[in-house]
């Protein structure tokens, strides 16, 4: 069974204090790994898709990386507006996958001024 585990559950950072979020996964064949950002009371917002080990994607202060067993979301010099819950999800190969995503429970990030 596909599993996605995110750590830590919560992270409190000072503005400018860089850190990393972890997403470890177990899947029969990885079709894609996705990162989303979710603000309180809203739907998740797409950030990145990673398809193969060694791939990296960047957007402003965020950088996502992928290995064969895990992905990291690095937050460089965060600002208060980076406060959100970050969700990781995997998509597996298989005739019955139909594009389904398996989500982790998320990491809640709070950045204080």
């Amino acid at each position: 069974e596909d599993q996605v585990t995110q750590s830590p559950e919560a992270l409190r950072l000072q503005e400018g204090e860089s850190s990393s979020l972890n997403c470890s996964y177990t899947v029969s064949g990885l079709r894609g790994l996705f990162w989303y950002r979710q603000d309180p009371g809203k739907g998740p917002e797409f950030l990145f898709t990673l398809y193969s080990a060694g791939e990296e994607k960047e957007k402003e202060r965020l950088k996502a990386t992928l290995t064969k067993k895990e992905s990291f979301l690095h937050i460089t010099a965060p600002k208060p507006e980076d406060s959100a819950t970050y969700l990781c999800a995997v998509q597996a190969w298989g005739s019955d996958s139909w594009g389904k995503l398996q989500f982790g429970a998320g990491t809640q990030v709070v950045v204080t001024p």
Partner: protein
Amino acid sequence: DVKVTQSSRYLVKRTGEKVFLECVQDMDHENMFWYRQDPGLGLRLIYFSYDVKMKEKGDIPEGYSVSREKKERFSLILESASTNQTSMYLCASSQSSRGGYTFGSGTRLTVV
């Protein structure tokens, strides 16, 4: 930008009521999904659909049904609402079987 619109942001219903949650997407996406999100449990897939009139059970379909009569619209039905169905419900769509989702803003349902 693809837009996924959920008809209600907040709903309060009574136990035993039949509840309809509506979702519409405007970019001709093939796949549509219904998830519920609960603290500590993350997003769990209820039902999904990869074509009009097609539906597949997700991980937690019990107590729910769905309808997809038109490509752009995917409805989630709670046949007889119960308090354990109090949750945030999220609708999403995707263009193909490989790729991420676009989510709606969510419906916060409270069953009393």
